[in-house]
């Protein structure tokens, strides 16, 4: 008896053909359908590696003056050239990625948290709370982003943490409006009513029913927001309100005392400028592609209020 069971078991489970893991097939399909999005993802990956392993990737320190190598044009040794203080520009661009990525991710994390709290509560509670909150969001959004952040940065003083705080307060307003819209439409769905009917509490409805369903919207907003934040950070550092020198931020590398030297050493402007553009390009493309794949309703909603 036991023998026959064994033989049946062996014959009925033929060896499974080897397949690629599901995550890999999904990624491959995404690359095939959205090649530009895939390029964006690769750029972001490279930036992440540069940011995390800056100490290994950069041949010199970000603030290290190399004797006798002032304003050298690009060459085998300094392949992006050196600046007016004889620092290797490639090394500074690599460390600059660390600034951009840190500011970008921290800001978007904070902004998304604030925006989700405001957006969902505003939609769920409705009534007077909704009206008051939305009027404040209106007023906040009617300022140009750069002007608000400039005033906030002047209020808070320069520095990494203040920069993140100022940028996330700004980004949260616009995002909260979109999340509120998505929550309002999710609340119309019958399963939310069903949840209420079986006696689910407010917190349970918000966390288990509404939040998972607006998650796609939140992820897309965050990805597109990353590009906008990196752009805003470089603009602020360019005006001298961002990360104080000597720490290299891409925007800061384009401004300050270096500007008068750029007529003789244009590579000082060219490479940081390219780095900013590539980073923004990467996040925009990935965000666009994710939006098309995850939530076509949002098409045309992107674009940055912080451009400039």
């Amino acid at each position, binding site marked *: 008896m036991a023998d026959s069971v064994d033989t049946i078991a062996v014959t009925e489970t033929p060896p499974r053909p080897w397949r690629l893991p599901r995550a890999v097939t999904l990624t491959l399909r995404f690359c095939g359908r959205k090649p*530009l999005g895939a390029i964006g993802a690769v750029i972001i990956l490279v930036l992440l590696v540069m940011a995390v392993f800056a100490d290994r990737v950069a041949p010199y320190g970000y603030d290290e003056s190399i004797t006798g190598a002032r304003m050298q044009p690009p060459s085998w040794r300094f392949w992006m050239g050196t600046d007016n203080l004889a620092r290797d520009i490639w090394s500074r661009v690599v460390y600059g990625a660390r600034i951009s990525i840190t500011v970008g991710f921290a800001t978007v994390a904070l902004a998304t948290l604030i925006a989700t709290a405001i957006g969902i509560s505003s939609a769920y509670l409705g009534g007077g709370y909704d009206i008051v909150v939305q*009027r*404040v969001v*209106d*007023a*906040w959004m*009617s*300022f*140009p*982003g*750069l*002007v*608000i952040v*400039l*005033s*906030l940065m*002047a*209020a808070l*003083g320069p520095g990494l943490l203040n920069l993140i705080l100022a940028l996330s307060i700004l980004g949260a307003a616009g995002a909260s409006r979109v999340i509120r819209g998505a929550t309002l439409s999710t609340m119309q769905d019958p399963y939310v009513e069903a949840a209420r009917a079986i006696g689910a509490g407010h917190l349970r409805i918000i966390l288990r029913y509404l939040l998972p369903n607006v998650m796609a919207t939140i992820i897309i907003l965050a990805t597109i927001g990353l*590009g906008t934040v990196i*752009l805003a950070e*470089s*603009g602020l550092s*360019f*005006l001298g309100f961002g990360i104080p020198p000597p720490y290299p931020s891409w*925007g800061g590398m*384009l401004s300050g005392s270096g*500007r008068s030297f*750029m*007529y003789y050493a*244009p590579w000082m*402007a*060219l490479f940081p*400028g390219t780095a*900013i*553009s*590539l980073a*923004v*390009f990467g996040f*925009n*493309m990935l965000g666009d592609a994710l939006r098309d794949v995850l939530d076509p309703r949002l*098409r*045309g909603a992107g*674009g*940055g*209020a*912080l*451009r*400039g």
Partner: protein
Amino acid sequence: MRAYVLRRLLVALPSLLIASLIVFTLPRLIPGDVVQLMLEEKAYGKDLDDLRAKLGLNRPIHVQYVDWLGSVVRGNLGESLWTRQPVLTELERRLPVTGTLGVMALVVAVLLGIPVGVLAAVRQDGVLDFFVRSAAILGLSIPAFVTAILTILLPAMWWGWAPARFVEFSKDPAGYVLQFILPAVILGIASAAGIMRLTRGMLLEVLRQDYVRTAWAKGLRERVVVLKHSLKNAVIPVVTVLGLQVVSIVGGAVIIEWIFGLPGMGQFLVDAIVQRDYPVIQGINLLIVLIIVLTNLSVDLLYAALDPRIRYQ
């Protein structure tokens, strides 16, 4: 239509009031005291108090707000704490510069964005479409200040060209307008890319509608089908984005003015923030808010003009 305009104006009022509160309090949060900055280390306690009283900064902040709002309504924005010049006079001098730059940039954005978007939609997936879409992606990714620096830098290196000094309108009207062309194009191109993408997308959707097929079937010419029947229906979201572009152009003007050395409001604002000149910061921000509220109003009126259904809601 008049009822619609009136209702729309009433809705704008509370937003304007909240904005004025933000405008007033935001610069006051700046740590460090303007009075201490003005007197540097020569200050003693009594001098500080005297100057504060003279500038009216020793009163409670809500009293100052009501006082400020009262004079703003009467058209008085106060005077700079440093130069003692009326803020309004200075703004009157600087607004035309920023205004010229902004309007020209917007014209570039619209004249480039909408026609190119229409062409790209009509010839979908053609060579032009592919080229234009790639250019738009580039235009959206390269920040205006990077383009601005490179356009100043490269010609200067190759041909020894340098941006000329600022020309006053009264001295040389043609030269005044000419000097804005380069900055306006740079500022406008970023907006044009967004407008172009949206125009293309919306027009593509409209071109698939049944009534457009009917228009084709009637034997109308392509120009009439595309421009008369389709574009008007595709353009409403574009108008919304145009309003948003005004906001970003005003913001972007701050950096562009700074790079090209144009004496507009942007430079004024950056200087005022560094010096903690509250009345100047408040005046500029208030003016910007006013411009934007007016823009939103005209966007809504444009909707109503484009789509009769909106008027009667």
